[in-house]
């Protein structure tokens, strides 16, 4: 395994004629949690989607585990070991929790399904209780757990999480971030996280990136960024005091 798991260099991406990403370069090392924060519309989700090949990077290169995946079809990127928990969760509402999870294991047919189930039920015991319930009838927090669990079912090397805190109560957000942390500490899972909730995301992360209008403007360790005056002013308003206290 190389020192860098995911490396993006000089990525430009467009939606039609509108440029969403401008020369983005970043990297994620194995065993690391990396957070990308930024305002609404900064291009965070686009960046994650570009890693998955949709939209395609117009210029630049994406390396995963040393292989160029810039032009690989989306479904094969998933099979290469990148699991994506997309924005808005996108679970299958009419299918049960169990069926949703089974869909997650498609990308890795060789994996032991029973083990995978045990692993995600350990991480989110709530899902075990809800196994035969339809996805659409779960609460928002449970749906987010399901989305993450579904991504984990393929036993990926890299987990991409898009706004796991979206629309959730603060207590549930803490629960989910704790689970991500446990996943990283106990299993060494590499996580690339995109968040608007900068405080939580940066506290959790080893390293962070800040994106403004499709450009990476700042980078540093999680605590460096949390202490950075610019970041505090732009993204942390309410949370600044907490950091100062901590």
């Amino acid at each position, binding site marked *: 395994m190389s020192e860098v798991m995911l490396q993006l260099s000089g990525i430009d991406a467009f939606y039609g004629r509108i440029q969403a990403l401008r020369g983005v370069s970043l990297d994620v090392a194995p065993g690391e949690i990396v957070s990308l924060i930024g305002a609404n519309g900064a291009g965070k989700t686009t960046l994650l989607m570009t890693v*998955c090949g*949709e939209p395609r990077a117009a210029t630049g290169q994406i390396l995963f585990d040393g292989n160029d995946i810039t032009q690989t*079809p*989306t*479904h*094969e*990127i*998933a*099979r290469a070991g990148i*699991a*994506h928990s*997309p924005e808005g969760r*996108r*679970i*299958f*509402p*009419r*299918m*049960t929790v*169990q*069926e949703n999870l*089974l*869909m*997650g294991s*498609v*990308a*890795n047919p060789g994996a032991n399904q029973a083990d995978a189930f045990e692993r995600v039920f350990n991480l989110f015991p709530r899902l075990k209780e809800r*196994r*035969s319930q339809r996805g659409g009838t779960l609460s928002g927090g449970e749906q987010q757990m399901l989305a993450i669990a*579904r*991504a984990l079912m*393929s036993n990926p090397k890299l987990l991409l999480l898009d706004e796991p805190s979206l629309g959730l109560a603060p207590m549930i957000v803490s629960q989910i971030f704790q689970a991500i942390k446990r996943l990283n500490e106990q299993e060494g899972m590499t996580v690339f996280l995109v968040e608007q909730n900068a405080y939580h995301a940066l506290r959790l992360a080893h390293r962070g990136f800040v994106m403004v209008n499709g450009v990476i403007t700042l980078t540093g360790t999680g605590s460096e960024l949390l202490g950075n005056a610019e970041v505090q002013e732009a993204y942390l308003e309410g949370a600044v005091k907490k950091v100062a206290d901590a």
Partner: protein
Amino acid sequence: MASQPQDWSATLKESAITAAIAAALMFPMIGLYTSTRAGGLAIETRWIELAIGVLLIFLGRIALIRLRDGERLVPFVGGVFAVGLGLQLPLPNGLLTVCCIAGGAVVVLRSVVLWVGGKLKATNDARNSPPLAARAQLFLKQYGPWLGAAVIAFAIAFPWLPFADRRLIDLATLVLIYVMLGWGLNIVVGLAGLLDLGYVAFYAIGAYSFALLSSNYDMSFWACLPVAAMLAAFLGILLGFPVLRLRGDYLAIVTLGFGEMIRIILINWVDFTKGPDGISGIPKPTLFGLSFSRRPPEGTESFHQFFDIPYASVDRIIFLFYVALGLALLTNAFILRIRKLPIGRAWEALREDEIACRSLGLNPTNIKLSAFALGAMFGGLAGAVFAARQSFISPESFTFIESAIILAVVVLGGMGSQIGVAIAAILLIGLPEWFRELQDYRMLAFGALMVAIMVWRPKGILSFREPTLRLHEEDRGAKQ
């Protein structure tokens, strides 16, 4: 239910408005009538029919308002009277007779429901329909396998039941063909969520494959069956490729065009398909080489000779019924099985969310193509049976209305529900045959039925989805 003070002037006003709307609608449809005369068409008027129709609607509206206010006895008597009137009085038009009877029956039914429902409400304060649906679901969950077995047993015994005559068995065969078509289209529309308006193309391919292979190469029904299925499946893939990127309305338009294309090719490729003349003399299926004709060709034996029973022409129809039944059961078993396999779940996941599917490593191309191919395959099978039943096929049998009917079977049955589709096929194919006495108004009654289903069961007759896998521990009482 407390009886509200009766406000006759409001009641009459509402009924009058309803009658006025009815009059405006019925004037062009019922009031005017084109008839052929020497020198062309002439328009005649039918004021009496129009007046009776409007009067019926006026009275019916009053009855419904009275029912709404909680009164039961008067509407009940009125409804019974209307039914009796419709049965006895020689109204000038068959449609009016039926409307009178049906309207009366509806009023009677509603007052009975109100009667019974009023008693039920004491114990059950929720509205009537949701618990009913939930109960039906529970009932099906518990007795589903038994119910299925009972239905199959009934279907097997059907030709031997006393009321089953030649015409009815033949009709049942047609219903089974549509059940098969419905199940096939259900893969594409119900499971994979791809709206296909050109499904008739595969039906046509199946029918023409059998017809052409048997008339040109003397191939038997059983040899043609897999070929027809495979050709249809191949065509399904062929259609699938260009529409991979399309969804919803756009997909519907392209598939609609595809259906028409196939029909137009069948009309115009005269050398090959005999064009609009169609293909006649399509042989009937045989039972292990035993034909069902009175005098089999030299060197072959027929069914009645082999078993040494007197010849009966109905045998052939019964046999075809069993062929259709067998193929329908095969279709059902196949679909029930494949739903539980990864590919079946992938179809449903694709219907739910294509982007999520892609991010999970599913290849939408393969999933869509397999749905199109398998759906088309069953269409092809049904087509071959259809050709065998008719003995004669022409492009006229494969117009857009067939696609629409098959789609209606799927939608009304409840997308994704096997039993629902079967019930809908019986309703939509069987009833129009019973409605035949209505002649021109057959399609009107058909439309009314569809509207009725959509009003009362907007998601289809049976619209709940059975999970593809169950947890055993949980079924045994550990539930919440």
